């Protein structure tokens, strides 16, 4: 199993190494100037040289992303439960949420600065919350609603009430839907945080490090900050996957080996 896992890691790692090698070689051979596309080795030099600044920026931006993620998830799930439980809320809210979800919410970042202040982190967090909320709400609500009618009838045959049905059937049924939303919004939260930082907030964050370095034509340093941002996004995505595996053991069952037995 672990040997198989390790073997599965080889192709992407090899591809990644080849990609970086081609990048480095291509830039050198073609004589592309550093301000257009810095070499990976130059970016690495910036990454190590400015590590304290970048680490701090990555940590702070990560905190914005995670705090927005947590608030957005809690709000999305709570509202999904409420709309499922009380149909009138559902009929009014869901079409609206679907419409809002289709609009580019990060475009609101400058407006949020006006609402929540341009110097603090609140407006940045608000952008993340707004970006995270809608996919979580819509997917979770779908998972809570799309239950096989037989399963509801079965619970009713046990004289179970709506809350029991919610707890025993709807919520576990919604977990895979919620997990899909989580995979989507975990990296999205980092994107939202950085775009929000382009427009305002404290000056020691990834978004500002990228814009200020790019402003002074220090593109290798800007790329180093982008690399840090990617690492934060990947870490959040990996956490989402891990959470999915831990919370739904039944989805892994029977995948490995042949435990399905005939009658």
């Amino acid at each position, binding site marked *: 199993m672990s040997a198989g896992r390790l073997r599965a890691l080889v192709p992407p790692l090899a591809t990644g190494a080849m990609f970086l090698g081609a990048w480095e070689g291509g830039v050198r051979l073609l004589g592309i100037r550093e301000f257009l596309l810095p070499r990976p080795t130059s970016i690495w030099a910036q990454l190590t040289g400015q590590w304290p600044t970048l680490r701090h920026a990555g940590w702070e931006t990560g905190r914005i992303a995670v705090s927005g993620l947590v608030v957005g998830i809690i709000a999305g799930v709570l509202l999904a439960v409420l709309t499922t439980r009380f149909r009138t809320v559902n009929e009014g809210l869901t079409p609206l949420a679907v419409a809002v979800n289709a609009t580019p919410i990060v475009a609101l970042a400058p407006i949020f600065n006006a609402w929540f202040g341009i110097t603090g982190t609140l407006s940045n967090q608000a952008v993340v919350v707004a970006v995270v909320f809608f996919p979580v709400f819509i997917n979770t609500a779908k998972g809570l609603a799309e239950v096989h009618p037989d*399963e509801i*009838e079965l619970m009713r*045959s*046990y004289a179970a009430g709506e809350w*029991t049905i919610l707890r025993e059937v709807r919520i576990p049924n919604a977990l895979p839907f919620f997990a899909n939303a989580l995979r989507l919004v975990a990296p999205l939260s980092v994107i939202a945080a950085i775009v929000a930082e382009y427009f305002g907030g404290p000056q020691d964050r990834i978004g500002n490090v990228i814009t200020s370095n790019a402003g002074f034509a220090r593109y290798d340093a800007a790329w180093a900050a982008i690399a840090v941002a990617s690492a934060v996004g990947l870490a959040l995505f990996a956490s989402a996957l891990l959470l999915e595996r831990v919370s739904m053991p039944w989805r892994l069952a029977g995948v490995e080996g042949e435990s399905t*037995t005939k009658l």
Partner: protein
Amino acid sequence: MNGDAVVVTEVEKVFGRGSAEEVTALSGVDLTIAPGEFVTLIGPSGCGKSTFLRLIGDLLEPTAGSVEVFGKSAHQARMDQDYGMVFQHAGLFDWRKVVANIELPLELRGWSKADRAARSREMLDLVKLPDFGGHYPRQLSGGMQQRVAIARALSFEPRLLLMDEPFGALDEMTREHMQGELLRIWSETDTTVVFVTHSISESAFLSNRVVVLSPRPGRIHSIVEVDLGERNEDTREDPRFFEASTEVREALRAVEDGS
């Protein structure tokens, strides 16, 4: 046991009353089922046999007439959890292991952990799946899942078992095997069974009485009495089984002809 298991009196069920799509699913239905009886409901699609079953289970309310289960209203019987239900779709919860699925109704009734474990072990033995308690439903075949569904329905020893085409999704061999198992369980537990099917041979093999329904609106066309005594696999080749099947088939033909 005193009184009848199920008494259905003058029941009518109309869906979408007053709307353009108003449908009378059942009309003027009377049926009395004795304790320990095995009754199947059969008829062409649209005859309201599933609706009939759901009225007995109080999953639907009749538009007119009354349904009594063990001398009380169907609603009270549902609240008292007097019956177990099995659907065509096994309806096991993916996120619960097989034992936890069987124990769900016991959990909802507040049984202790030890009592639940003891009962689910018994039930797994009853449906001959003693080694599969720790599996997840998706690791089992369709026939095995359906046996777990039956174990779940019987776990709290209901006096009535309502089954809605429980073997409809299974292949022929598995289906016949399951019919045998169901009869064995029925004789071991003296449960009353109401069983919906669209299979003529299944109805003839399983039941004491086959209730033949006619469609639009659903009515009881006729009732075929079957007495095959103790049944086993040889019964399927017994002339009396063919006779019963023929009688059910002729009743269904008469339904189709509208007589």
